[in-house]
């Protein structure tokens, strides 16, 4: 399984903190995973439809969306950070 976690308005629009997905092939990119989730429609489409607005972390490292998930255990999807 691949653990997906959501933060900020991505979490709010989807309506959940995260979920587990059947493990995709290692060469699957983060963008591919996002597209598959967005295809579910509703909150998923609203939150994940525009990938320009999204950032990701694989196993707690920021990772560009065009990178493959490889053997990562956790994929986090969220808007650009606004801390500090």
């Amino acid at each position, binding site marked *: 399984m691949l653990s997906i*976690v959501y*933060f*900020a*308005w991505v979490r709010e629009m989807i309506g959940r903190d995260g979920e587990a997905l059947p493990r995709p092939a290692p060469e699957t990119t983060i963008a591919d995973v996002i597209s598959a989730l967005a295809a579910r429609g509703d909150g998923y489409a609203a939150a994940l439809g525009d990938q320009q607005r999204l950032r990701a*972390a694989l196993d*707690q490292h*920021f990772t560009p969306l065009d990178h493959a998930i490889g053997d990562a255990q*956790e994929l*986090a999807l*969220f*808007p*650009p*950070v*606004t*801390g*500090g």
Partner: protein
Amino acid sequence: MKRVLVQTEDFDVAGELATLEALGGGGVASFTGVVRGGNGLAALELEQYPAMTRLQMERIVMDAGERWPLIGMTVIHRHGYLTPGARIVFVGTASRHRTAALESCAFLIDWLKVHAPFWKKEHFADGNTQWVASRSEDDARAHGWNG
């Protein structure tokens, strides 16, 4: 000395600075970020990515330690609900060289802004809420340190 804290409660700026001063470097720089009021803001909510936050802050502190000759670094970031006037973030650096202390302090706060997994949501007195949008100038400043 490297000190990284992520917490809901407030922190003691005087105590943190005294610890840095006591290291004997001669120069201590600090930056404190405080919740700005106005526009009917009732509270600022800071959401974090708990599994990543501390790890990422420690990476940033390690980066600074490789770039400047520092003898002490303290970074504290709060999360949860903060009201106007409350402290959000503290960065303190100590060095024998005032330039190293000042520059690394600026680096750390710039870097936290774009590399620490926190998200701010504004809660207004009228019940409205709004996620704070990231600012492209923050990205530009943080990337400026790569030059």
